[in-house]
């Protein structure tokens, strides 16, 4: 990112012919032609593609949400907002929506806090004597904590469902080995008090490393002198993290928050792998699972589309909220990752 300035400055020097000053009018026309071809190639074609592959399906899905389409016949009887009224009174959907919102609140916050803490340790959490540096062996930690992100989500789900296995899982094995006998055969994914928390741990575990690497890169782009100056002024690691590093990477945090939130609202693969039937008392059922079963096993595509529209609206509201909060906090910069 720091290179952007010099690069853009260098481009015109090489690109614009410097011999003779062309009359302003002619230059403008050539720029116009350039601009038109640029727009056609780089905007027109992608936009047409976008309309066809993105906007059209959205509109279509939104229309289906107003019908009682079963999904398996050509008839799509129009029912207006009937599906939405139905969703408002559907306890299963409402509880799924509640679960999705729980994930939305918890998952990004915990994941990114943990990622930030780890990134701080790796970049400037090392010895406080000498230059600013990370912990010893930080390169190793960085690689290790990135591992889970490389493993496909469904594999993570399967691994963890074995870890949580009540009879011979790693977790209960460890707990009972240290003498906590009340965890003999404890069903982590089958108990209404622990199922959601156990699932959240898995999602967080698989993303902490990725966002840590992201934050490490962002922190490294902050001028080291700032950290050194803060330290000379007597700031400890915590103050440096909160008052130097965090403001410096606010743009990245905002973007990460949006992406992690979207992932939390989806969460389909994790839920399907860990608790395909929605968990004890439906405590881990999320909207995407409900959409899937409503559409394909209950043959109600119209209702499923209405759920999709609701989920999309929630997602948009969330993204809007993140940007609004970020603006209130004075975060600047584009959608830098």
């Amino acid at each position, binding site marked *: 990112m720091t290179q952007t300035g010099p690069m*853009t*400055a260098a*481009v015109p020097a090489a690109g*614009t012919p410097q011999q003779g000053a062309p009359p302003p009018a002619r230059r403008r026309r050539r720029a116009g032609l350039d601009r038109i071809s640029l727009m056609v190639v780089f905007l027109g074609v992608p936009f047409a593609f976008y309309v066809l592959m*993105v906007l059209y*399906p*959205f509109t*279509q*899905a939104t229309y*289906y*949400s107003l019908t*009682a389409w*079963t*999904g*398996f*016949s*050509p008839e*799509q009887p129009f029912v207006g907002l009937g599906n939405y009224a139905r969703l408002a009174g559907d306890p*299963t959907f409402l509880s799924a929506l509640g679960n999705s919102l729980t994930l939305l609140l918890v998952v990004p916050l915990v994941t990114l806090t943990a990622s930030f803490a780890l990134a701080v340790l790796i970049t400037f959490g090392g010895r406080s004597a000498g230059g600013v540096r990370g912990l010893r062996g930080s390169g190793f930690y960085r690689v290790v904590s990135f591992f889970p992100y490389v493993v496909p989500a469904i594999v993570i789900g399967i691994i963890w469902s074995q870890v*949580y*296995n*009540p*009879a011979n899982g790693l977790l209960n094995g460890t707990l009972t080995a240290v003498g906590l006998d009340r965890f*003999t*055969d*404890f*069903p*982590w*994914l*089958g*108990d*209404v008090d622990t*199922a959601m928390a156990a699932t959240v741990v898995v999602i967080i575990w698989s993303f902490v490393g990725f966002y840590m690497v992201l934050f490490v890169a962002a922190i490294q782009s902050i001028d080291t002198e700032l950290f050194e100056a803060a330290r000379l002024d007597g700031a400890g690691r915590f103050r440096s993290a909160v008052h130097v590093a965090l403001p410096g990477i606010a743009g990245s945090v905002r973007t990460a928050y*949006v*992406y992690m939130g*979207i992932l939390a*609202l*989806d969460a389909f693969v994790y839920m399907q792998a860990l608790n*395909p*039937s*929605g968990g*004890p*008392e*439906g405590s881990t059922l999320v*909207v*995407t699972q409900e*959409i899937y079963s409503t*559409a394909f*096993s*209950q*043959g*109600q595509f119209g*209702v499923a*589309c209405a759920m*999709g529209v609701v989920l*999309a609206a929630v*997602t*948009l509201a969330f*993204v809007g909220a993140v940007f609004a909060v970020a603006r209130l906090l004075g975060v600047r910069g584009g*959608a830098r990752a």
Partner: protein
Amino acid sequence: MSPLESSRTPLQRRSFLKAITAGAVVTPFGLSLASCAAGGSGGGEAGGGGGAATGEVSDTNPFGVAAGSTVEAVVFDGGYGTDYASFAADLVEQNQDGVTVEVTGSTQIAQQMQPRFVGGNPPDLLDNNGANAIGLSTIAAQLEDLSDVVAAPNLEGTTIEDTLYPNVLGVGMYDGKLAAINYVLTVYALWYSQSLFDANGWTPPTTWDEALALGAAAQEQGLYLFTWGQEAASYYLTMALDSAIKEGGDEVRLQMANLQPDAWSGQAITDVLAAMEQVVASGYMRPGGAGTQFTAAQAQWSQAQEALLYPSGSWIENEMAEATAEGFVMTGAPTPTVSADAAMPYAAINNTPNEPFVVPSQGANPAGGKEVLRAMLSPETATEFARTKLASTIVAGTIPEDAFGSSALASQVAMLDAAGTDTFNYNFVQTYGMTADVNVLWNSFLSGASDAAALAEGMQAMFDRIREDDAVVKVEVS
């Protein structure tokens, strides 16, 4: 500042970044909505099939398959594979002049067939099964009545209906129409290890009192009576329903299958749930099932032998073949009744067949689909199926005395023979896609987190919700 930046470029760059941000905003929209969009709405072409050219109807070609035509069969590629359908397809190709049959396997039936049903070009024969099956009531109106298939002679000249086990076609009836023929006979029973029971002098329980006594005997040895897995808690619903139907008679089955308002307050089901509640409260269920993957739970019974009994369909032998202890001698017994003077004899059994084959009316060659089905229901294919899959089709008398050396299959035939016409079946749980909701309630009940009253209330609420929902296509069961 460079010359370019001094013009409008910075503004453009900023708007470009904004555009990217907007893209990031719209992405979630895509995630949640794109899944709903249809592949292509060919509504206008609907009705293109159905009126396909037909050949001359004769005794050897009862549905009039056109010579030289092509038949497309899509078969669920699950535990039984697709080779039995290919076997029948070969017979059709031999018997019908120039007819070719293409058999394709699939495990994503609903996802792959959905656009084809909408577009009016479904396959000629479809085995609608597996976790991704289409809810049959959704497409029932678009299916052929298969009554003429069972009324037709098989390849040896006997009327097909006369060769089938009793009461095996009822589950395929949708509003008076035989919309599906479920091909594989499934016996729902309590499965146990004959060798383990013999060694301990145990016998399978015929009543719930005996079950509780057996549970106590198991507990003395540090064993459990039952085990269960989170995705298969619904097997205990099947056991409870079977027990209640045997206790209270066929009216219980009709109340349940038609989602009646007072279905879960009947005496029979109340008694059964009370007994099962006692099983749970006495600690006879292996703990942890609500958090255990179902095949792992089944291995606790078949491999580790920590539990004595497991209620399941007869696919269990095949499913656990790789995870069954040496010398297990898997054997089935009918579900216990509440009292000794139940409405049906103890030998009565749930034989709801599986693998529903349907012939969509909109297909290009429905007659061809029926012809493949006719070949499948002929003794040649049915015997081949029994021999290779160690399971019976709905065609009776295809299993030899030694049952190909399978104790489970032998006991399956013995149970069917003992039951005679005292067999019953239902499949409303699949019809209305209730399995996920059922599992939620039953996991709580089996783990002791709820009780019989809460379970009955929850099941009744589920029934009421579906019954009152006009968006759900109902199937009247009689």
